[in-house]
């Protein structure tokens, strides 16, 4: 037999599952040898066992003697979500529900349900349900190549999700093997959403099956169910991740945008002329304020529109100089006020050397029109060792300098949504692997 993993709703694949039906099945009715109730076999000639719907006894269906194989001794009777005999179209073919069983993982006690489907032309399939998630399952003849971590089939790699043992807890309907409550199988599940490979081994046979995730609403519609199927809980092992597909698309776009940004940044920085428009040194008084406003000569700022950097350099040593003023467009009279402080401090505290600030301060002006400009400045300084001395600071004006702020801001804004998509995708994957002993998201210590 084969079963499924806990939480997966994976598929049962009884050993010896016939791939196709060799003989045409017949419908047959008889009296239950245990309770006397009426029992109907829909696949007489194919079914090996049938379960009495009244007393749940397992009856031999291989011949018309209908001998009792076992009586139901369990305490819980399970109600199938699909009535036996109900029909629905799945994957373009009509299937009839002929069997129902409940299985339980030996170690965790997790239970799931499986429904045996039959079509006289296409044989058997399974519907497996756990936590409201459904899989449409068929047995396969090909044996996947397996190792400790994965299985490969048809060029696709499936990651191991579950290895364990499962017991048959409850059966109803008819089956193509000798079903028995309490029978136990070894199971393995490998996933590659939306598909899953399952192995069932009962000591004599090994059967592989391939499951495909199916939405409950598709089943409700196909089988014309009056009652809605139970809502899905958690994430199934092979449930397709909407977050993954979004992340893949957004991730590719993100990579392209970053490439465009980086290329544009390299070109912009490489082509920046970095022209020096003006450079001159000026005096300031230590530990005092300037009495007269400093005004620079008018200087030419080339190019129609570009950035402008004004740099102030001063030889401060555990002291500071403040420069406040304005850049004035001599042609238009437009004024851009600014203030900058040059302050550099250093020392040695608690056995460690430290520094703070810099002997240089730069002002970046954005998209400044070309023309003729001059600068007005006032100064103030403090923490100098002597008072009233004249010291110098240098003003340098550069046109069209390379900058990186736009690049990093755009990088940041472009990465917000992909970051959220990645986190969302990862959260989904972590939830998917939550019940697995083989989760790639477990820490090394766990």
């Amino acid at each position, binding site marked *: 037999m084969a079963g499924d993993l806990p939480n997966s709703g994976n598929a049962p694949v009884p050993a010896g599952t016939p791939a196709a039906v060799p003989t045409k099945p017949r419908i047959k009715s008889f009296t239950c040898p245990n309770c006397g109730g009426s029992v109907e076999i829909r696949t007489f000639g194919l079914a090996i066992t049938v379960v009495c719907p009244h007393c749940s006894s397992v009856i031999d269906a291989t011949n018309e003697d209908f001998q009792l194989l076992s009586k139901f001794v369990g305490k819980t009777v399970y109600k199938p979500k699909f009535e036996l005999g109900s029909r629905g179209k799945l994957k373009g073919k009509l299937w009839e529900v002929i069997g129902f069983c409940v299985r339980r993982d030996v170690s965790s006690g997790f239970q799931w349900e499986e429904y045996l489907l039959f079509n006289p032309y296409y044989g058997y399939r399974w519907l497996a349900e756990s936590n409201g998630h459904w899989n449409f399952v068929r047995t396969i003849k090909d044996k996947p190549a397996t190792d400790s971590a994965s299985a490969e089939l048809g060029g696709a790699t499936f990651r191991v999700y579950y290895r364990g043992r499962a017991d048959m807890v409850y059966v109803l309907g008819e089956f193509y093997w000798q079903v028995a409550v309490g029978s136990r199988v070894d199971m393995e599940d490998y996933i590659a959403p939306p598909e899953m490979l399952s192995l069932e081994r009962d000591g004599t046979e090994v059967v592989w099956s391939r499951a495909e995730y199916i939405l409950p609403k598709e089943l409700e519609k196909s089988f014309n169910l009056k009652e809605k199927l139970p809502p899905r809980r958690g994430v199934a092992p092979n449930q397709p991740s909407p977050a993954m597909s*979004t992340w893949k*698309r*957004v991730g590719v*776009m*993100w990579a*392209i*945008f970053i490439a*465009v*940004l980086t290329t*544009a*940044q390299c*070109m*912009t920085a490489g082509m920046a002329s970095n022209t020096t428009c003006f450079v001159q040194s000026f005096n300031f008084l230590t530990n005092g304020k300037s009495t007269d*406003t400093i*005004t620079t000569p008018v200087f030419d700022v080339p190019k129609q*529109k*570009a*950035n*402008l950097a004004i740099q102030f350099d001063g030889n401060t040593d555990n002291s500071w100089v403040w420069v406040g*003023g*304005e*850049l*004035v467009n001599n042609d*238009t*009279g*437009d*004024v*851009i*006020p*600014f203030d900058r402080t040059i302050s550099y401090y250093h020392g040695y505290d608690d056995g460690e050397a430290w520094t703070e600030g810099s002997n240089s301060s730069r*002002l*970046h*002006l*954005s*998209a*400044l029109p070309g023309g003729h400009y*001059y600068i*007005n*400045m*006032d100064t103030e300084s403090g923490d100098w060792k002597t008072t009233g001395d004249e010291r110098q600071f240098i003003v340098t004006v550069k046109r*069209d300098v390379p*900058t990186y*702020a*736009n*690049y990093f*801001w*755009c990088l940041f*804004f*472009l990465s917000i*949504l*992909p970051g959220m*998509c990645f986190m969302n995708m990862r959260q989904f994957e972590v939830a998917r692997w939550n019940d697995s002993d083989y989760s790639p998201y477990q820490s090394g210590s766990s």
Partner: protein
Amino acid sequence: MLDKLYLIFGVFICGLFIYAGTIGMQLVGAENANAVKGRTGPSYYHK
């Protein structure tokens, strides 16, 4: 849906970045955002 919105947003950002690069515009925190018309303050003394 989300990916289409992101495509539009990304194209806009890249376009804006390239445009800003050609005119030396700083997209965030430009220090001359408060430029004023006419001469004020110390420039008043420049004759």
